[in-house]
């Protein structure tokens, strides 16, 4: 409540400008270090950038909070909230805008003086400025001022009893009548306008979060919570809101406002600010499922900041990342192909599902070499082509050939033609040694709508192909091909003019899709060259964080590394998490778990080595504290998962969990045996011990299941699964007396009879 906290504000319109507010306001601009204007006053920010002080404003003492006017004009208008609750409009730098001049210096004075904690401009109706104040026994804590309002008429001021503060009211720029007054007898610590409706204001009050509706100020939605600091709404997902309390960040979904959808716990230091990542890479506005928070402190003249980037697990799945659609499809495709293959490779120990081309080609064996004729001609080529089961699988993964035994690329060519990818289709045809088809495709492309007539020229050049080593054609093509703009046309001539086995012009043409290059390599590189090339390409992809490389790495350790560098580069956590959700457990248990859980925690590890975070997306939460009842167990990593965690795994020797590990409140009781959940089921079935040998495994499994928690989603009554099952064998209504819910009938599978039951 006390102490002015230094803050940094980014300009809403200039990405290179920011304001630092401490005891005074300073406007800075970021530029490359050592530029012409670099003076002694510049503040080095990193090796390449430095901040230049543009303007300074020390007109407003007792500053507590600042908000930057959201509209373009007037540009540098700031609202400053002071310790006595007054809000003053001020500006930084010169402004020649008359509207600005009129506004600067205007003061908004609350009825009872107390600290102004927060300010928020309405993003749509930018005349509205909300101010959050400390508590007063008789006054409101959220005041909404209209900055364009005419100054309060002198008559009404005179009517007010002016005794103590008559000195202050002599200036004619004081507004004392707010447009709205909200939150009586409460303190307001943070504010933000909701983007889904500019009439809604979210406020962090003393012990709760409240949503005020300006259309009906007597109505409000609220939820009790500690996390009331720094409320902020996700700029791209308007129902998502973050707030914090000390070291804890809570993420809320406004559509389901009762509880936070996610709580990120225990930062070692108390947070000072939380924000949403607006844009991380150019052109992609969707990859916003990141929240940053930082802790900072003033250090001589500059600010030191620690940025911590944390991903949102649950929320990220709801959004589409950059590649959420394409990559998982590729991954599923990979699985399908590999499964087909696995049937054939029964003897092979290593599982190839998801393992990526890199691993597939390593195991290559029985490669045969053929020298085919150019189709449509009986001329023998001197280009060796290699075949093996693994290479075939790789080609399939690259999408060149379809499933089954068919090794013809015709289908693929047709689909490329349909998508008007003429150059690529021609290249693929050519690599399959069908020069005629390639020419035909190029002709088609030239004739198509909006087709490039130059393709005809290329076709002509192609038709002149000769395999004579010293022909003029060869000489000209190898030099002129570099001037071709399309990479596929370029690699076509590179292929035709290069020596067999030396296809660097094709393989290292980085603008050609990885899958095409890999497919090419699988066809024309021998067993020694191929793994070397694939390894090199994989490394390159990993370093660049290029998601296309997932084809090579599969979802292995390499794949996780690749994802990691992808997330490092783009911040697109959604895609990474989405892919990682598909990782089969047996392959890379540890990495996959981390990845699926919230990918970036792995890379934030470099900033926060102590940060251990394991969270399940679906968990049984305690009625009292809302934490997962498996909370304490999950901090022990990599134990057997599943319900054994809940301490109900059937083995009575295991420690029983009958109370919430978070708050120590007892777990609900089973409606039938009245024991707290977590207590193993007593042997109620009366199964005779004489039949012990009979199907022991099945018995065991059933016994384990009997201990599971189960409950009706309608009436929320429930108990041990075994008890519930036996109850509903001869009842239709809920076992809780007075509850008439027909639980079992609501369950669509409840009416099914197990096939093996008598």
């Amino acid at each position, binding site marked *: 409540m006390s102490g002015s906290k230094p803050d940094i504000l980014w300009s809403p319109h200039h990405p290179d400008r920011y304001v630092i507010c401490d005891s005074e306001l300073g406007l800075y601009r970021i530029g490359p270090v050592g530029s012409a204007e670099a003076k002694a006053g510049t503040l080095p920010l990193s090796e390449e950038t430095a901040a230049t002080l543009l303007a300074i404003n020390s007109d407003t003492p007792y500053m507590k909070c600042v908000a930057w006017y959201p509209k373009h004009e007037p540009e540098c208008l700031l609202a400053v909230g002071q310790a*006595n609750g007054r809000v003053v409009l001020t500006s930084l730098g010169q402004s020649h805008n008359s509207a600005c001049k009129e506004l600067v210096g205007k003061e908004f004075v609350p009825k009872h003086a107390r600290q102004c904690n927060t300010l928020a401009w309405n993003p749509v109706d930018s005349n509205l400025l909300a101010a959050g104040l400390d*508590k007063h*026994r008789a006054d409101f804590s959220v005041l909404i001022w209209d900055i364009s309002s005419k100054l309060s008429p002198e008559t009404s001021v005179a009517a007010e*009893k002016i005794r103590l503060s008559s000195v202050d009211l002599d200036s004619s720029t004081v507004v004392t009548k707010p447009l709205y007054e909200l939150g009586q*007898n*409460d*303190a307001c610590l943070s504010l933000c306008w909701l983007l889904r409706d500019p009439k809604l204001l979210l406020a962090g009050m003393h*012990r709760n979060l409240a949503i005020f509706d300006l259309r009906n100020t007597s109505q409000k939605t609220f939820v009790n919570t500690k996390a009331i600091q720094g409320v902020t709404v996700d700029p791209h997902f308007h129902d998502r809101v973050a707030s914090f309390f000390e070291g804890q960040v809570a993420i809320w979904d406004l559509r389901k406002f009762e509880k936070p959808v996610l709580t990120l716990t225990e930062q070692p230091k108390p947070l000072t600010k939380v924000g949403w990542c607006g844009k991380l890479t150019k052109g992609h506005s969707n990859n916003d499922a990141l929240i940053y928070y930082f802790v900072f402190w003033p250090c001589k003249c500059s600010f030191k900041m620690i940025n911590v980037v944390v991903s949102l697990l649950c929320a990220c799945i709801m959004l589409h990342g950059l590649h959420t659609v394409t990559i998982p499809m590729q991954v599923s495709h990979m699985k399908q192909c590999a499964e087909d293959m696995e049937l054939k490779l029964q003897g092979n120990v290593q599982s190839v599902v998801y393992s990526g081309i890199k691993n597939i080609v390593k195991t290559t064996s029985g490669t045969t070499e053929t020298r085919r004729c150019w189709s449509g001609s009986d001329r023998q080529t001197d280009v060796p082509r290699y075949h093996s089961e693994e290479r075939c699988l790789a080609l399939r993964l690259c999408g060149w050939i379809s499933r089954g035994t068919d090794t013809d690329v015709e289908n693929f060519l047709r689909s490329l033609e349909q998508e008007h990818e003429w150059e690529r289709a021609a290249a693929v045809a050519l690599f399959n040694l069908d020069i005629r088809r390639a020419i035909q495709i190029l002709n088609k492309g030239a004739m198509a709508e909006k087709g490039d007539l130059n393709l005809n020229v290329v076709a002509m050049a192609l038709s002149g192909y000769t395999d004579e080593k010293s022909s003029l054609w060869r000489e000209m093509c190898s030099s002129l091909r570099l001037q071709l703009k399309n990479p596929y046309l370029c690699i076509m001539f590179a292929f035709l003019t290069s020596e067999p086995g030396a296809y660097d012009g094709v393989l290292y043409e980085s603008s050609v899709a990885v899958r095409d290059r890999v497919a090419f390599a699988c066809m024309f590189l021998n067993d020694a060259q191929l793994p070397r090339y694939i390894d090199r390409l994989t490394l390159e992809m990993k370093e660049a964080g290029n998601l296309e490389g997932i084809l090579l790495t599969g979802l292995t350790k390499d794949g996780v590394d690749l994802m990691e560098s992808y997330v490092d580069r783009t911040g697109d956590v959604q895609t990474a998490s989405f892919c990682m959700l598909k990782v089969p457990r047996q392959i890379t248990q540890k990495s996959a778990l981390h990845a699926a859980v919230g990918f970036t925690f792995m890379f934030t590890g470099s900033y926060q080595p102590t940060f251990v975070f394991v969270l399940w997306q679906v968990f049984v939460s305690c009625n009292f504290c809302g934490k997962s009842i498996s909370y304490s167990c999950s901090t022990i990593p990599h134990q057997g998962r599943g319900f054994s965690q809940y301490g109900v795994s059937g083995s009575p020797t295991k420690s029983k969990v009958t109370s919430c590990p978070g708050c120590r409140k007892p777990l609900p009781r089973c409606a039938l045996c009245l024991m707290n959940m977590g207590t193993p089921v007593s042997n109620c079935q009366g199964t005779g011990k004489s039949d012990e040998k009979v199907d022991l495994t099945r018995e065991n499994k059933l016994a384990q299941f009997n201990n599971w928690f189960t409950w009706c989603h309608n009436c929320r009554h429930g108990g041990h699964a075994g008890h519930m099952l036996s109850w509903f064998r001869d009842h239709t209504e809920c076992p809780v007396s007075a509850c008439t819910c027909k639980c079992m009938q609501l369950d669509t599978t409840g009416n099914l009879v197990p096939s093996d039951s008598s």
Partner: protein
Amino acid sequence: MNNMAFFPVSLTLLLISYFSFFFSFFLCLLSCFRCKFFSLTETPENYTVVLDEEGFKELRPSEHLQVESAIWLPLNVVSNGSASSSSQAVGVTKIAKSVIAPLAQQHVSVFMLSTYQTDFILVKEKDLSVVVSTLEEEFNIYKEEGGESVPVHCQDVSNGLHKNGREAIQPTVHPVLIPKNQFCVMSLDPDTLPSIATTLIDVLFYSSSPKEDPQPSPSQDCVKFFSFSLIDGYISLVMDTEAQRQFPADLLFTSSSGELWRMVRIGGQPLGFDECGIVAQISQPLADSDISAYYISTFSFDHALVPEEDIVSVTDMLQHQRNEPATS
């Protein structure tokens, strides 16, 4: 339904008769805010201090110190904002009907402490079960534990006696004293506290020593009264206009209309801590006529502050109340 919260401290009441002993303690408090609940009220007779356990630990025992034996719990009505009352009357008046009257009926003795920010109702720890069961109908009751609000229910606290066994005595109507000086209710940015600390100490301890006139005559026009509280980081000050002039004007927070208050002192003899219904008998009529009020209990007497413009009607009302039992 409004919320009511227990502040997470238990408090001790102190009476200090010798100020210089207390002086060093006060300085210590100003420098380190380890104490979360601290209130100091200066009256002509003595200093009354309410403070939590943390603060009490720092206090050396002394013969000048008189400690009220019971532990008190502060209650605070927290609005959940669902119903914003249109009534302008605030403070004690607002809760008179919902809290103070029912507690008086159940013979729960309360100690009121109004601040600039809110009103605290202190109840004895042993009365907790009665308080909870009385107020449960009107309020959601929470106990704050480590920042979390934990709901309190009747069965959770019903250990020991359920009803206060005390006899229902017709509450005595106490005499009132209405001094002439005007009071201001103010607050302060905690950051600026050090800059006014010297003034504060000067006003509290040196301007007029309570020792000089231990038994003020009722005829005296002005009564020295000064209250300072620092609760959960919020500062609240009550002082008369004379004292207020010694503070730099721009640092103290008050209302923009500059409202002034008059004081009503309740009690001719020290009131003690067991009698109940004292606050109720003042706040009830005020609530009936919708007059806002501010109420500070001290070791000896209770003090109510009412807006200056309402003092005439309040005086009439209280006179009437005092005459009535006499006639009946």
